[in-house]
């Protein structure tokens, strides 16, 4: 994917006002700085205004960034995070969409709300937590450039005092640094997460997806308000009732039995009364008698849904019980 397309896709998906910034160490460009600046300032200018810069140590106005970006070795003790060994001669930063080189690192600045979505998506793509190291110092240079480069991992930074004071970062902004490979992997996996497949575009229930999957695995298919499935030549409907406050702790299984006309159905209600006792229920509806089995979960639906095997066993057992009663009812009603 071209950098232009990659950038467009990333910005559109996360609705980011600032462009991701490409960072290349020791590029083949010559320094072109008008005057010394902070590294974090260059990154934000590239993100906000589309400027590109190539700079050497002579163009830097922040000693911390000199260390973090590997222009110099520390004189005393160790410094973390930093690029080491300190063999950096020059660095080019430019908006990713107009990058003419393959970046080592991509730096993304945005509001906490927008970068939260980046984190959520990244966690889904990688199947793991987003582990970050930050201390509010050496932020854009160390936490978001040196760490992704040296440790090949994504890192989040809350920025540092210098960045916020001198480099025009807004109070709500934070910054992510990506190894290039991870940035590409994330962007290529982006697709608009549809919360619903319904034709009307509406979300029609709040059933936990784990529960829906369990029910589908049992052999049902999902409709708008209920599930249906064929079991031993009988079509069974599964419905999840809610109480007045919207809580669910039971499941109902339904088989509507059809009669020639409303009078015939009426006559068979006597059989239904004799045969179907709690938790079985029945309901006369015109020329149909609905036979219903109430399965009490004895706990909130969400909790029950987490106990997959127990839930499946309850429903499977319910299906057997319901089918048995329907068979007996049909036999008696036919007589």
């Amino acid at each position: 994917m071209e950098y232009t397309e990659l950038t467009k896709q990333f910005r559109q998906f996360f609705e980011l006002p600032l462009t991701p910034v490409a960072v290349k160490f020791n590029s083949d460009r010559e320094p072109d700085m008008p005057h010394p600046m902070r590294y974090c300032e260059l990154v934000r200018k590239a993100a906000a205004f589309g400027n590109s810069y190539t700079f050497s140590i002579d163009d830097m106005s922040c000693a911390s960034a000199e260390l973090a970006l590997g222009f110099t070795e520390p004189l005393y003790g160790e410094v973390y995070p930093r690029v080491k060994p300190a063999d950096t001669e020059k660095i080019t930063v430019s908006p990713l969409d107009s990058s003419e080189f393959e970046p080592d690192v991509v730096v993304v600045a945005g509001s906490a709300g927008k970068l939260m979505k980046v984190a959520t998506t990244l966690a889904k793509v990688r199947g793991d937590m987003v582990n970050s190291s930050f201390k509010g110092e050496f932020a854009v240079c160390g936490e978001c450039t040196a760490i992704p480069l040296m440790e090949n991992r994504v890192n989040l930074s809350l920025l540092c005092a210098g960045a916020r004071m001198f480099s025009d970062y807004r109070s709500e902004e934070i910054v992510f640094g990506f190894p290039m490979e991870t940035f590409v992997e994330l962007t290529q996996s982006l697709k608009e997460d549809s919360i619903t497949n319904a034709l009307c575009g509406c979300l029609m229930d709040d059933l936990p997806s784990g529960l829906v999957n369990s029910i589908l695995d049992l052999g049902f298919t999902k409709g708008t308000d209920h599930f249906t499935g064929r079991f031993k030549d009988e079509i069974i409907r599964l419905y999840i009732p809610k109480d007045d406050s919207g809580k669910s702790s039971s499941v109902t299984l339904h088989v509507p039995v059809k009669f020639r006309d409303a009078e015939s159905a009426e006559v068979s209600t006597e059989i239904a009364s004799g045969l179907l006792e709690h938790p079985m229920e029945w309901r006369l509806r015109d020329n149909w008698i609905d036979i219903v089995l109430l399965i009490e979960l004895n706990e909130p639906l969400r909790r029950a849904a987490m106990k997959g095997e127990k839930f499946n066993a309850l429903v499977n057992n319910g299906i057997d019980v319901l089918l048995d009663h329907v068979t007996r009812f049909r036999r008696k009603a036919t007589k």
Partner: protein
Amino acid sequence: MLTAEARKAALEFADGYSVCDYCFESRVDLVQNPPINNLTADIAEFLNMDDIRFTAGCRHAKWAAMHMVTNPGDTVVLDSLAHYTSYLAAEANRVKVVEVPHSGYPEFVIDPDGYARKFEEVERETGSPPALALLTHVDYRYGNVADAAAVGKICKEYGVPFLLNTAYSSGVMPVDGKKLGVDFLCASGHKSWAASAPLGMLATTYEWNQQVFDKSTIRGDWSGRGFTKKEVALFGCSPVFGAPVMSLMASFPAVVERVEHWDEEVENARYLAAELERIEGFHQMGVRPTEHTLVAFESLPFFEVAANNKKKGYFLYHELKKRKIIGIHPGMSKSFKLNTFGLSRDQVEYVADAFIEIAKKYDIPVED
């Protein structure tokens, strides 16, 4: 569906401002030539309400009523089968919604007493009754006709203004606003009044009309401009001039006439339901026998056919199209809705036969 007269009118008045040449009162509902002001009065009488305005769709009518009656932070009680635009009208007006539950599978009935329970619940929790109650007279999912009169009575008892959404009722079946105890009634011109889109109506009583159709009081601070005849919630003058309002006018006599035949229409729907239920696994959901022409069916065997058909769920759409029946959403096979309104008995029989023929073609058992 437009009437033949409405089709002609839509063409003749297709230009955006075609009814505005003789507008001397600065609002579309007051135009005398063509006689839109008479139409306004006639429709109010037809619905047995005191006053009506045209709106840019039923959704606009709901929004407008809510906007003029509630304040941000208030609560609206609505039925849990309400159209999504009822929820969005509340959201746009920054009011909370509290839903009246339905009875669940397979009837999905709204119990009017649920409104009383929710009114009390809202009062307990907020210290005041809800600012508005909204009921969907006929829901779009199962075609159930809600007991609007009972809800109207409860609203009067609790002193809660009552908005009835008649998108699927007024214009096709008799609706008497006063009898139902309605304070606001919204309708869909393009859905049930044989008019072209976008057109809705908001009807109210003289108790509420000044508040709901409140006139503009804003003045330009520099120019001194004012718009004192323009109604705030209707964006001054509802944008329905031209084809929408004139196709409504052209269809109105037919609409008045057709609601007299509602019982026959429902009979046709019941006939279709009975015929389709001869197919194994076909089952009409919602209240039985249906009280409306909109009927929802579940049809698992068609879904099973779709699984092995190279056209997948689209097979049903294509099979029906081959038989010159259109309207079913492409891809639907597990469940679908049919509306028999406006079809002759012969046409309904043709549709029923087509479904039975398709079932037999795919070896789905059909009762004799």
